[in-house]
């Protein structure tokens, strides 16, 4: 019997190639999209799943005047060892520093190593990173020990067999390579290119390693067996009170720490929004393809009413027929699944490139995913097959032969509702795509309060370069094409660091953003001074003075800010106010900012050059030549301010790109469905078209007749889609402090596009049908 079903199904498909192709193609690409999105979601959910131990990360919240002002895993270095020593619940800890960039000298040229971290000797006890050579127990015990990843070893030494060799960092200290470690997997929160023993930090005189400073370290903990996170956390308040909080009461500052289990660290930091959005799109795409499947299968099966009749007359009961039709759609669904998996495998590398993540295609073949896919295709097959199967099999055998019964199915309201649903989804996706695009445009072109164009940023990676900024500036200003030069600790784009400051009359200090600049900063970046004056390097007293931004004086209600005093390690007089500029990403509003003139210890980190030309290659060669003249051992690292700016919004751009692809896919599948549905309907109405033509109807007349219904459906879909899309995009935009105001444009454009798609899909077949010689149309029946 099954052979009979399959034969009938396959022969039916081969007789209706357009129908079969659109069904297979639509389902296959939707399954492919679902797989790709599933891989992405699975990747996001499987962060840090390779560690053997149950690991917790310590995070800190700081409260100022009872308002939370800071929430971060980065805290002081003393907490880890003290927790272990004093609380029996804590089994082990390991600390890592924030990431550094350093330069290593094996031969002559410096080798830049990013993402270098300092780590405790317990690093390999807690984490499951694989050491290729070296002893995991001792490799990070002695000061000035360094473990390199294979990649870093190759970069510095040109080989990986380097354990025991020595390497110089920053032309200062020598380190012994005590091990080689595999590169951390992409789904690891802890990423590094090299590990330096934490003990090294204690050897540096400028590092503060106690309880009252050195806010640069992340602590990971392992709890004793049978100790829950809650029991451990319950002990933290008393512990912190003794260690730090009781001494901060006068400042009205209080810290709280809590534990996050490692697998949720990544997801709690990355918002779930993208995962939700893409899972949603996956479901919508699948829904659209399933609707096509249902509509086409139903429309197509109306042609098979005769077969149903015959089978019934011969002895098939309803159950047998339902099984037959369901098995057919499940077979189609299964073939589409195979095609979809193949397509996904083919597209995976391109996809990885778009999402900038490794998707591990091989997880497709683990039993969990396979059974998920199996259920998926089964469900799609059953859903798509159910309606036609139950509907057709319900015919009375005697009626199934009658053409009028068959005709009725083409115009039933379920089909209309499904088309409306499909177009509602498509239109919502089009609107969303437009809005995301507009918002991104808006951000990338927003007036920033500074000029990011034609600015070259040079990094001062070396201590000796950091204290000679004046010399560097003078030298580089002699290069033709360099208009101005400024040294600073940071440049606007991805945000500045914060410190505690106290305003003159106030008793408690607040965390305020700070950047240290020289007197050329405002000129170079074209930041407007709105009152007071800029720094003057001639005045020694300016070293302790501050410039502040407009939000600063507004936030703290300073009506006459010039001359007001800010406290931090002494008194600082405000000498000028600058117009607000967006130093942090546009997700947040401009916050109060202090622009100081006295960089801490090592000096400035960057030189910004305003240049007159965009022919960067020649200019950079000249700048590099001057740079190397000053000191050949200084690494020459440059960037462009506008590039840095774009980098900040890279994830949004990737999001947009991905959204665009998946939305287009959804729309494509929906229009394919409409196209083939109209084909089937035009075919069903061939006789009617013939009669109308004989009676004098023209092509335009007939096309309108056949298309009208679909255009009405698309208009109806617009009415539903608009509010749905409005709510969604409004919600999405809330994440941005600076956002476009929604107007009618994206909505109208989406309506127009949807109608256009509908008209194009519908008219090809209807015009073709209308042009057919009426004699042929009539003979058809």
């Amino acid at each position: 019997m099954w052979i009979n079903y399959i034969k009938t199904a396959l022969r039916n498909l081969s007789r209706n190639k357009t129908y079969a192709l659109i069904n297979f193609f639509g389902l296959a690409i939707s399954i492919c999209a679902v797989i790709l999105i599933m891989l992405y979601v699975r990747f996001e959910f499987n962060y840090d799943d390779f560690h053997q131990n149950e690991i917790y990360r310590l995070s800190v919240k700081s409260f100022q005047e009872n308002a939370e002002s800071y929430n971060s895993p980065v805290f002081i270095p003393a907490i880890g060892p003290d927790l272990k020593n004093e609380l029996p619940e804590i089994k082990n800890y390991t600390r890592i520093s924030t990431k550094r960039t350093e330069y290593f000298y094996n031969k002559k040229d410096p080798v830049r190593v990013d993402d270098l971290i300092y780590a405790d000797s317990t690093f390999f006890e807690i984490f499951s990173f694989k050491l290729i050579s070296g002893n995991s127990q001792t490799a990070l015990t002695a000061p000035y020990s360094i473990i390199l990843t294979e990649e870093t070893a190759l970069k510095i030494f040109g080989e990986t067999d380097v354990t025991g060799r020595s390497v110089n960092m920053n032309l200062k200290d020598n380190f012994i390579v005590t091990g080689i470690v595999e590169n951390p997997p992409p789904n690891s929160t802890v990423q590094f290119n090299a590990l330096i023993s934490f003990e090294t930090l204690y050897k540096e005189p400028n590092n503060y390693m106690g309880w009252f400073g050195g806010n640069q370290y992340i602590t990971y903990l392992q709890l004793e067996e049978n100790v829950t996170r809650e029991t451990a956390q319950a002990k933290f308040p008393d512990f912190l009170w003794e260690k730090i909080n009781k001494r901060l009461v006068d400042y009205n500052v209080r810290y709280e720490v809590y534990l996050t289990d490692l697998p949720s660290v990544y997801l709690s930091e990355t918002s779930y929004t993208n995962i939700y959005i893409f899972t949603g799109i996956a479901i919508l795409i699948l829904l659209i393809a399933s609707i096509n499947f249902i509509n086409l299968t139903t429309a197509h099966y109306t042609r098979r009413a005769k077969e149903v009749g015959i089978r019934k007359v011969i002895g098939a009961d309803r159950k047998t027929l339902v099984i037959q039709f369901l098995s057919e759609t499940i077979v189609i669904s299964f073939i589409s699944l195979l095609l979809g998996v193949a397509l996904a495998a083919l597209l995976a590398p391109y996809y990885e490139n778009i999402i900038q993540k490794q998707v591990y295609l091989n997880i497709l073949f683990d039993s969990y995913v396979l059974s998920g896919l199996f259920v998926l295709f089964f469900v799609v097959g059953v859903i798509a097959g159910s309606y036609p199967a139950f509907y057709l099999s319900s015919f009375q055998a005697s009626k199934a032969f009658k053409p009028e019964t068959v005709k009725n199915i083409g115009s039933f309201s379920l089909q209309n509702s499904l088309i409306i649903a499909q177009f509602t989804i498509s239109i919502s996706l089009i609107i969303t795509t437009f809005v995301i695009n507009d918002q991104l445009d808006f951000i990338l072109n927003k007036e920033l309060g500074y000029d990011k164009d034609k600015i070259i940023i040079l990094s001062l990676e070396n201590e000796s370069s950091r204290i000679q900024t004046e010399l560097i500036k003078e030298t580089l200003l002699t290069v033709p094409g360099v208009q101005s030069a400024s040294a600073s600790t940071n440049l606007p784009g991805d945000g500045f660091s914060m410190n505690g400051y106290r305003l003159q009359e106030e008793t408690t200090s607040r965390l305020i953003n700070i950047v240290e600049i020289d007197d050329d900063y405002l000129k170079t970046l074209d930041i407007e001074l709105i009152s007071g004056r800029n720094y003057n390097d001639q005045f020694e007293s300016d070293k302790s003075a501050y410039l502040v931004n407009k939000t600063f004086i507004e936030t703290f209600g300073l009506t006459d800010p010039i001359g007001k005093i800010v406290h931090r390690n002494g008194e600082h007089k405000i000498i000028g106010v600058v117009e607000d500029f967006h130093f942090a990403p546009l997700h947040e509003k401009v916050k109060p900012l202090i622009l100081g003139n006295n960089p801490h210890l090592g000096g400035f980190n960057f030189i910004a050059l305003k240049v007159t030309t965009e022919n960067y290659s020649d200019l950079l060669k000249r700048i590099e030549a001057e740079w190397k003249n000053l000191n050949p051992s200084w690494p020459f690292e440059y960037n462009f301010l506008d590039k840095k700016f774009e980098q900040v919004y890279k994830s949004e751009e990737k999001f947009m790109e991905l959204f665009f692809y998946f939305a287009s896919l959804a729309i494509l599948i929906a229009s394919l469905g409409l196209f083939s549905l109209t084909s089937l309907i035009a075919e069903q109405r061939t006789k009617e078209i013939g009669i109308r033509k004989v009676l004098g109807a023209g092509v335009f007349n007939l096309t309108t007749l056949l298309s009208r219904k679909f255009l009405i459906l698309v208009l109806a879909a617009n009415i539903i889609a608009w509010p749905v899309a409005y709510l969604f995009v409004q919600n999405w935009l809330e994440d941005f402090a600076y956002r476009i105001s929604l107007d009618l444009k994206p909505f109208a454009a989406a309506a127009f596009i949807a109608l256009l798609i509908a008209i194009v899909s519908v008219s090809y077949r209807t015009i073709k049908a209308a042009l057919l010689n009426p004699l042929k149309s009539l003979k058809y029946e």
Partner: protein
Amino acid sequence: MIKTENMSKLYVTEEVETTALNNVNIQIEAGEFVSIMGPSGCGKSTLLNILGLLDNPNSGKYHFLDNEVSGYSERQRATLRKENIGFVFQSFNLIDELTVFENVELPLLYLKFTSSERKKRVHEVLEKMNIMHRVSHFPQQLSGGQQQRVAVARAIVSDPKIIFADEPTGNLDSSHGDEVMNMLTSLNKAGTTIVMVTHSPTYAEYGNRIIHLFDGHVVTENMKEEFHV
């Protein structure tokens, strides 16, 4: 074998109510060859559909093989149908996607015959209908007469007690028509009961009884010759 008592059938659409059958009382014995005649729209096909268990009457009783079936569900009727009844239609009603063999095999599939039994029976019946040489052709590749022979083969392959034929010669030229009628006659001679709807007085004569329908009523029943069960 078949007995109806005051059987009626009404078709109700939005605007009109049509009485297709009105108090029909007929009786057909096993081994008979009954022709049903009457003008278009008199209820012939409706009667055949009900007798063939494809449809239920609205009122009255219908005894089929000693079962009162007028209130049977679709499933019950399907079971009785596939075990006892064969159908032949004017438009042949072969499934286009199946070959001659597969079309004829279909009733046996629903009766869950084994593969070897199916093969044997289909070959036998195709030999009998003289269409064996077309066994792997599709219906569209056959002439009308050949298609009807396949349809008859399909109707008799499961050895039904009764065959209902709805204008089996309607789409055939006279020589093919004669051929089909001869087949039905010989089947009847071999013991199969046959009920046939036809427009053709000539072909109606092949039966041993003719029932005339008009406007849903049985108007006359002519017994052609003495019939003994």
